[in-house]
């Protein structure tokens, strides 16, 4: 079957990037965090809650609630509603759906929000109940969640392409440098490459600073048409292109590439830009080796050249390849599904020029990617979006 040509995003914008600062543990519920994010969206955009006519929610810890319960909980009357359980790909997937909904005028203002709480035991419970394949064929092996599964992927990737821990460590170290400028990052101490290498092993070759810290928090943004934003006087970023892919390359015996590699040409063609044109890049960094994979699959270098790319570039805010400028999940923390939003929300602030201490000078064109759902032996979901600030 021939693939059809996609409709461009015509005048679709994203506004009001919101972050509710993270905490390591919270006795509050996921609903509490999501409520804070919705409140911040309304306050930041200067709208009333009743102006929101679409809602898209992602969370691991809402218990028996889905988006519908939240409408009544928060007094929202919407005509478009979605709940997206795609882990690290939830932000891109939510953005895509919301963009098409406002484009088709099924809704005018859609609030996309992700939030999770983190009780002392909630991370383990999430792991235990993650998916059927995980329950049947991964969790009984003591994998204890993603660490061991990603360790296998990392081990194979590093052996296949001759990547060392130093290479991977550069990503984590650069992100920590960025995080030191982000007052909301949970990691406050500097990290040297020596410290990275000396960290205790978690599940070889994954060591402590390869892992994200589970925490509580929320992130959100609004999706609308350009004229809506203009009428509200809201600064907004234009959505140029997106891709999304699930269960790609199922025949690869082990994951050495994500779904981005299938769709990356379309991502840049639809946006009408080249990888070199991007001012900032926000990858999904639940492990730095996955970020290295994204540098390859998103077209910044060829497969197998990720390590060389990292060695050749400065990934910090002031560097030649500003990447995960907030510090990323590795240094800010992983607030469950909000981890999917973290890069996109920070990227929006960058192209809107509102990133404050982490602001990259003259950032206009940004890319954010997502990756998630290690259902069995690999991450199944991937996505990416390119967006531009108002002056581009």
């Amino acid at each position, binding site marked *: 079957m021939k693939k059809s040509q996609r409709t461009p995003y015509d005048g679709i914008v994203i506004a009001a990037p919101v972050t509710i600062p993270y905490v390591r543990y919270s006795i509050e519920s996921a609903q509490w965090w999501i409520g804070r994010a919705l409140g911040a969206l309304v306050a930041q955009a200067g709208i009333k809650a009743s102006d929101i006519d679409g809602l898209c929610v992602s969370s691991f810890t809402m218990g028996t609630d889905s988006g519908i319960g939240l409408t009544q909980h928060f007094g929202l009357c919407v005509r478009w509603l979605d709940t997206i359980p795609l882990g690290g790909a939830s932000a891109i997937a939510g953005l895509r759906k919301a963009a098409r909904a406002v484009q088709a005028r099924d809704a005018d203002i859609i609030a996309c929000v992700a939030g999770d709480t983190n009780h002392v035991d909630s991370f383990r419970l999430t792991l235990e109940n993650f998916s059927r394949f995980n329950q049947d064929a991964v969790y009984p092996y*003591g994998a204890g969640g993603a660490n061991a599964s990603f360790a296998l992927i990392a081990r194979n990737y590093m052996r296949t392409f001759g990547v060392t821990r130093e290479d991977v460590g550069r990503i984590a170290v650069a992100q920590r440098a960025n995080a030191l400028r982000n007052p909301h990052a949970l990691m406050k101490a500097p990290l040297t490459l020596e410290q990275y290498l000396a960290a205790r092993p978690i599940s*070889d070759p994954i060591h402590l600073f390869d892992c994200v810290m589970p925490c509580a928090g929320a992130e959100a943004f609004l999706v609308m048409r350009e004229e809506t934003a203009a009428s509200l006087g809201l600064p907004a970023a234009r959505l140029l292109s997106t891709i999304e892919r699930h269960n790609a390359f199922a025949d690869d015996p*082990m994951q050495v590439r994500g779904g981005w590699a299938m769709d990356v040409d379309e991502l840049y063609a639809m946006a009408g830009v080249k990888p070199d044109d991007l001012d900032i890049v926000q990858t999904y960094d639940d492990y730095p080796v996955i970020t290295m994979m994204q540098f390859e699959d998103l077209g910044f270098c060829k497969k197998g050249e990720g390590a060389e790319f990292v060695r050749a570039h400065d990934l910090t805010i002031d560097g030649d390849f500003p990447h995960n400028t907030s510090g990323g999940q590795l240094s800010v923390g992983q607030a469950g599904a909000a981890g999917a939003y973290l890069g996109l929300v920070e990227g929006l602030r960058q192209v809107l020029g509102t990133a404050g201490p982490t602001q990259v000078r003259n950032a206009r064109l940004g890319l954010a990617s997502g990756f998630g759902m290690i259902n069995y032996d690999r991450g199944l979901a991937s996505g990416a979006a390119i967006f531009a600030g108002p002056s581009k």
Partner: protein
Amino acid sequence: MIDPIKPPRRKNPLLRTRLPASPPRPRSRTSHGFTRAAAEGRFMLQRCEACGAFAYPAREACPSCLSSALAFADAPRGGTLLAETTARVPSDVYFRERAPWRIGLVKMDCGPTIVAHLHADCAEDAPVRMSFQLDKSGQAVAFARPEGETPNMADDRQWREMTADPKFRRVLVTNGRSVIGQEAVVALKAAGAKTVFVGVAEPWRPFAGEDLLRRQEGVEVVALDAADEKSAADLAADIGGKVDILVNTTEYVRAGGLLDRKGTSIARDEIDQAYLGFINLAQAFGPAMRMRGADGVNNSVAWVNILSVYALANWPAFGAYSASQAACLSLSHCLRAELRPGGIKLMNLFTGPVDTEWFQTVPPPKVAPRAIAQAIVSGLKGGLEEMYVGDVAEEIRQRLAANPKALERELDK
């Protein structure tokens, strides 16, 4: 290469006995196809009856052609280890206590990739041989071992968690008067058991084979009449804390069914000896065994029953005996569930008529007591839950699976 395990030192009675933890237990219903395979020591995967593709993990439709005809079928065990990792700080209590724990991803020659526990001698890019084993929660897990034999192979720490190897363990064989019991003692000693306690009712009465038992080093004859509640309790008070494997060799075989017997006296004896004897043993020894499931190298690991295969389908010629065995089989499932929190395996060996006096009139083939003893050891070493010993037992198993009604009619002759 791994070092041989060392004989455990005498336990310090002042130290707390570490309580057993269980690895994660939930599984989908379909996934219990692997449990069935593991229980019998088979290696089975789902295979699509439409396109022939093997699939893993357990699925409800074929990922190659979406056919729903995905039956569990015996599968080739060969594969290659693609990547390994050592989990050092797992969040699960069972694994955290046993960390570092090594797992890997194996590409099977027949197609699927399987996350598996690894034997220490497995190496990346090298061939492995896969099996499903029952772990300490009684559920099936994939286990990869090197393709060939390696030195001290069975001493691997992770492998020993999956099995009930008699090596360095202390065993109670409940009935030393029977030939099966005596052969079991010899086989278990040969397999490296540290001590074999042999129960003998009224030990002052001489019996055939007694000299042989008493002459063996590491064999202790102890007074035990399983049918006597007090006798079982007295022995447990003495040695209950050091029984790592219990082999229930109670035998009480009498011919006859219902109409050619008068009254219930023989049936009462059958129930007293086999069924109530089983209850006495379980109540006397089960609780301590369940407590000691994580008690070091010589932790408590297994309970073995020798049952007649006619527990599964009544053989009218030995009809009341068959019924007493069926009662024991049912009770064994209860005991399996109650021992499970301790990680104790319950293995049932099903045999056809054994070559002993009480089956004198039955034509061959009959099972040699030595074959049963060897099966006990191999089942313990393999960590099995069900074994069928001898041609008759295997045939009954197959005929029962094929058509229970046909088997019922065929046994009536």
